[in-house]
């Protein structure tokens, strides 16, 4: 054979080019798989028990106040023509509801995850870029201009549909109502509050003037700069309720944090007794068969009450243990039958 041409065409004799790199070659052997399954099964059983027990210790109180049935307290507010309706929901607690107590409103059959709804907002407006105040983005249509063609700030369907029921909680002690202080600070994500949403800078010392030439969203009772006149840090786009609403929910049933109960006499929780909740019913959901709820809950290291995860871990853990036993039997039978044959 030719020798001259070959040497130049010979491939390199390195481990890489000769495919002889040192390598780990694992095989799924019984010594790894069966103990592995057993360990994972036991670990999951442990985690599952922990989750389940923790979940059992969390107290949740849920009340539907939509007013669908005639005998529910908010039924009269469901009539369309009534404005500024107020209704009162009463409930009683048999034991101390340990604090800090979180007060959520929940909506169901409400598709905040609908795609066209979800893209209908203008990020530039919400970071305080006044250039976009006068000309909102097209995705906000049909909530970008009102009937007189004035630009809407903040534009879009998400902002427009902001939840506007308000609540006041009273404990009934000896027939008198004692107001329970509700704390609305810091209920949204700190990154939303500090970075994602920024107010436009004041013009001539007045915050409202920054919104000149624009109108409020169609369904809002007040404009954005009037959301909280008592606290400039909670006004405009930085309003906590607004931020909570703008964080779109992933599923058609969701809860959003409304207030926390952490102050005063109720720092340790809501003591047993009777309570009355005054609802300023503004938000219509019956037209699309939605439901509104109130939820009181306390939280733990795993968040709110969630039986699903605890049960799922228990199920998977026990399945893993069962599988490891089955595999051990199969392996032993196969091994011994193999030895018998040999």
């Amino acid at each position, binding site marked *: 054979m030719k020798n001259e041409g070959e040497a130049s065409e010979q491939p390199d004799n390195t481990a890489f080019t000769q495919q002889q790199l040192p390598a780990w070659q694992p095989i799924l052997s019984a010594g790894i798989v069966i103990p592995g399954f057993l360990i994972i099964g036991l670990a999951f059983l442990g985690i599952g028990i922990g989750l389940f027990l923790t979940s059992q210790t969390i107290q949740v109180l849920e009340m539907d106040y939509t007013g669908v049935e005639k005998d529910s307290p908010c039924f009269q507010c469901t009539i369309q023509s009534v404005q500024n309706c107020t209704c009162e929901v009463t409930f009683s607690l048999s034991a101390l509801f340990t604090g800090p107590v979180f007060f959520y409103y929940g909506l169901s059959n409400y*598709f905040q995850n609908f795609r066209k709804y979800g893209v209908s907002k203008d990020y530039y407006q919400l970071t305080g870029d006044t250039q976009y105040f006068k000309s909102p983005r097209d995705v906000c249509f049909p909530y970008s201009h009102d009937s007189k063609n004035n630009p809407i700030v903040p534009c879009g369907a998400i902002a427009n549909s902001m939840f506007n029921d308000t609540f006041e909680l009273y404990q009934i002690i000896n027939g008198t109502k004692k107001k329970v202080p509700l704390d609305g600070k810091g209920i949204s994500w700190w990154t939303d509050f500090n970075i994602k949403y920024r107010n436009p800078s004041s013009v001539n010392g007045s915050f409202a003037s920054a919104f000149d030439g624009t109108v409020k969203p169609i369904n809002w009772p007040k404009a954005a700069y009037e959301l909280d006149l008592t606290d400039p840090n909670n006004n405009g786009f930085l309003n906590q309720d607004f931020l909570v609403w703008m964080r779109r929910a992933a599923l058609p049933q969701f809860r959003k944090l409304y207030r926390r109960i952490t102050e005063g006499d109720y720092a340790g929780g809501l003591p047993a007794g009777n309570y009355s909740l005054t609802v300023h019913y503004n938000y219509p959901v019956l037209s699309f068969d939605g439901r509104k709820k109130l939820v009181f809950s306390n939280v733990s290291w795993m968040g709110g009450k969630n039986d699903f995860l605890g049960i799922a871990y228990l199920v998977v853990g026990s399945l893993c243990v069962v599988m490891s036993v089955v595999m051990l039997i199969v392996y032993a039978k196969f091994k011994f039958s193999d030895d018998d044959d040999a």
Partner: protein
Amino acid sequence: MSLIFLKLLGATAIEDKLQEGVPETIACLTLANIKIWVLTGDKLETAMNIGYSCNMLRDDMNEVFIISGHTMVEVRQELRMAKERIMGPGKDKFSSGLDMEKTELYSSDSVFEETIIAEYALIINGHSLAHALEADLEQILVDVACLCKTVICCRVTPLQKALVVELIKRHKRAVTLAIGDGANDVSMIKTAHIGVGISGQEGMQAVLASDYSFAQFRYLQRLLLVHGRWSYHRMCNFLCYFFYKNFAFTLVHFWYGFLCGFSAQTVYDQWFITLFNIVYTSLPVLAMGLFDQDVNEQYSLRYPNLYRPGQLNQLFNKRKFFTCTLQGVCTSFILFFIPYGAFMSAVRDDGAHISDQQAFAVTIATSLVIVVSAQIGLDTNYWTAVNHFFIWGSLAVYFAILFAMHSDGIFTIFPNQFPFIGTARNSLNQKIVWLVILLTTVVCIMPMVAVRFIKADLYPTHTDKVRLLQQASRRQGPQEQNFRRVRRTSSRRSAYAFAHQQGYGELITSGKNMKVPTASTSTYPLSSPARGNSVVKNSVVSGTTDAAETNSTGFRRESDQNQEVTVEDLEAR
């Protein structure tokens, strides 16, 4: 008469050795269930001696059929007789040879022939082959040839070589490989599915026309049993994994559709969708496709029957495709519904919202990347440093890019493009999110581990057994290699051939060499004079200019050899 006053000056001889390793290679490939046929331009005796010297023909073979009829009728007669001798006088079947007594069970449209316990060989001469390749005889030729252990065609023209390859391609669902070293092998190399050229003393025409080329015939063993097998294994694993990964990724949106009003809302971040297939999951599977070895080199060569799964199409067929697609669908189901169940009423540990679109997206995306990385980890049999780097690196890059895209800095530059700001920080610091990810990963991966383990235990394939052997031998340390020795039958025959038959002098001087010898080949495309040179090489000389070339075919080392370089002519057997 004039010969008596001549003085003998000397004698010349040309020795053309077989390359080294040829008989071992042929034996090895036969064990791998590869049928080997020899198509050579040499004459009958030379070809037979080549066959004996490389162990394809053996003394203990039951019968060697030689087909050398000159007319269609004779050839038909000889072929029929051969077939009857093989199949037994009682069984007079004229079928396509598939419903014979089988020693191994194959399906009726299997490629592989029934192994007849007795061994037969078929040697067919070029002029007979010209008749046998006609439409009415080709079926019986294929039947007889496939019943024989060895087929040697001698005195074949280059075009006939190509026609024989095409015959097999048409009649059998087999993959054909043609290997040769000369310019006359080019048509055969191009016709076969895989063409291999041996670069050497014949020049580079075969190499230029081939798909693969190397310098020695024995490298064919490595090409097929090592590199070919690895390539098939890698390709099939790669395909399966790709279908699985993409179905798992995409069908989450199908399940989500039921819950988002079928509005085509994506579960994931737009950037994740863009980068998933390019950045997060491309390199590990590339590393697996490049480096994976199920069985290492020495064991691949030692156990040629590891080649069978490739021949039987076992690693990727409709059933396997359906299985890995189904696995992808189930994974997407688990990937969606476990976070769904957890997030229905979940909140952060400080009470704030977590079941929002963005945190949901991050949870599912993270679970997905971890699950598919774990799956590629399970699929990889051969973990080189590169594999480690790519797999762990891809996971690290995922988290790096995730936090980068959800960071403050990039949001201030492009607020519209990166709306997920703060999501990674606020969701991935929650224990419940990690518990969801852990549960999802385990539920997706564990069934696969269990199934593979049980299957390898109860129904181990050849590959599994060899891998166990390999692991055991590695643990015991380097040992003496017991190579399976190829049993070379010591033969009375030597490796030399001596032309004792009457030569072609009479044929040349008779002037018959200028025309096509037999009437039947005139219908052949072979017979057009334009092809002159290669056409009639097998039997006659085509022109005086070529006289020297073809006249010496009987004596010169033939460039028309197909499978091996042979030792030629010189000694009596």
